[in-house]
């Protein structure tokens, strides 16, 4: 990469008229070139072996210490890590950009598994607010209940809660799938922009309020619809997709998906088809 502090000639982006300012400081630009796909990797990721397993007791650790140790274990090639005694600590497992099998033997507090890209996570407990916020890819399974803002702004991956979730589930989500085995609170799908939410139980008031795009499937009762949320026809392909998704998610396998309600955005937005980061990755 060019030294951005000393760039004097016009860059490719500038030639295209995309940038005219002089970049200084720590700003970085990265371009996705299909020919260089094999060179694309995240900084700080490691080659791990899923058969190499270890346990980590975080009872007496702070969240930064625990996260640093997870990173350290990945750097040693451990591909399966079991976390003991999380005891509701906040911000555990954040920022993991690796393929990794991560198992929490207990509950997490706020912001658990935030900003991750790739790990397969099982949490044998409950999670607090904003679990898996900004998830890019991977799979996070919660065996019990989840707090509010579950899956806020996720862009990809599967986020599964086998219990019930709080308010504003999938707020601002831009991709991926959220599956809830129980009930969901108010403002589910608030301002969602893409992706799918599946709620097998009941949902609270203002479902899909101000949603731009995306789809919500509800198996139970709906407290009320939010503005811009409307019913849509549940097609055969929807049902096939739901069955497949629920089976893969190990949740509600025998659920009668034909009786689910499908809710979509009732408005058409213009200039709303730019690819999201996960889709860019898929494209290359």
């Amino acid at each position: 990469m060019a030294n951005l502090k000393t760039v004097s000639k016009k860059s490719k982006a500038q030639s295209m008229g995309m940038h005219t300012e002089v970049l200084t400081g720590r700003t970085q630009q990265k371009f996705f070139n299909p020919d260089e796909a094999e060179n694309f990797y995240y900084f700080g990721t490691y080659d791990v072996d899923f058969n190499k397993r270890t346990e980590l007791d975080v009872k007496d650790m702070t969240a930064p210490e625990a996260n640093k140790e997870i990173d350290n274990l990945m750097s040693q090639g451990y591909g399966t890590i079991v976390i003991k005694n999380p005891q509701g600590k906040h911000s555990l497992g954040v920022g993991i950009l690796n393929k990794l099998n991560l198992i929490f033997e207990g509950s997490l507090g706020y912001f658990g598994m935030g900003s991750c890209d790739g790990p397969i996570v099982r949490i044998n407990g409950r999670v607090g607010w904003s679990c898996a916020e900004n998830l890019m890819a991977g799979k996070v399974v919660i065996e019990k209940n989840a707090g509010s803002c579950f899956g806020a702004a996720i862009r990809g991956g599967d986020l599964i809660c086998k219990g019930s979730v709080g308010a504003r589930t999938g707020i601002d989500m831009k991709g991926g799938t959220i599956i809830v085995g129980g009930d969901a609170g108010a403002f589910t799908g608030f301002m969602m922009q893409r992706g799918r939410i599946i709620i097998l139980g009941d949902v609270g008031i203002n479902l899909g309020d101000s949603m731009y795009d995306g789809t919500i499937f509800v198996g139970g009762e709906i407290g009320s619809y939010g503005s811009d949320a409307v019913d849509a026809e549940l097609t055969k392909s929807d049902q096939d997709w739901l069955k497949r998704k629920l089976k893969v998610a190990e949740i509600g396998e025998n659920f009668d998906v034909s009786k689910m309600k499908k809710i979509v955005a009732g408005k058409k937005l213009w200039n709303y088809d730019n690819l999201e980061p996960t889709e860019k990755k898929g494209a290359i």
Partner: protein
Amino acid sequence: MCGIAGLIHRGKSSNVGSELQGMLQALKHRGEDSTGYALYGDTDGKNFIMRFKVGENVGEGSSSVMEDVSVYDERKKIVDETLAEMGAKIVKEERTLPYSLRYEIDYNVKDLLEFSQRIESIPGVEILSMGKSLEVIKDLGNAKMVCDRYSLDKVVGTHAIGHARMATESGVDIKSAHPFWGYPFSDVSVVHNGQLTNYWNNRRVLENKGMRFMSECDSELIAVYLAEKMRDGATLEEGMKASLTGLDGVFTYFVATKDSLGMAKDTMAAKPLVLYESDDLVAMGSEEIAIRSVLPQEIDTYDPFDGEVKVWQI
């Protein structure tokens, strides 16, 4: 951002002072301008316990004005005289700090409103709580500091609620700290996390109905609102349900009485609450780590939904 916590033991007593200290200390990152405890201790139920202050804590970042300790002594003297005039006998007197006092009073109170109005007509005097079980202790600093200052870790009782405050709507002082006593009802206390946007409208209406406000903290409105509903004959739970529409803004609050503990969450569920419930214990707090301080083992917890009201009995 503030933190609230509460617990109720059903069918037994426990060291609620120590337990609540642990819960609130776990939430200290949500605010440590002040911390308050409403403890429902084991008493014989014969005498009233009055916690009151004759001044403010002027240290530790306080927004209060410094006063000479002799002023506190003078106010205390007037309180003692007023109690004597009303025929109230002080059975036990504790003065933990120059500005903070605890009296056990032998008095056949017919009307707590009239009693409280007379005491609080003394400038600078505020009753923090009045009841036969309830004691409200609040001061500046985090949970451990307040607990140590008032030796609360030995208090045994059935239930308790508490609050770790980050001052936003009003100053850093004891009068704005939670919990708020449900004046003039014996043994009623409230803690709140959130912001009420129709505070002044409600305050004007309630003051016109004869209710009293001691601070400009929006959370005090909840205590006064519920007290007014109960004065008009509503049950605690009915008052709490009415508050979901009567109060505007975002809130999660706890209210406790002599034998019960309740929670209410606004219709937008904008403020957090995690709840653990079993046959013999209910524990709840703004974050799960508060509950973990009393129940470190793996437990099932959940978030109450929007517009939910729950009340538990001891």
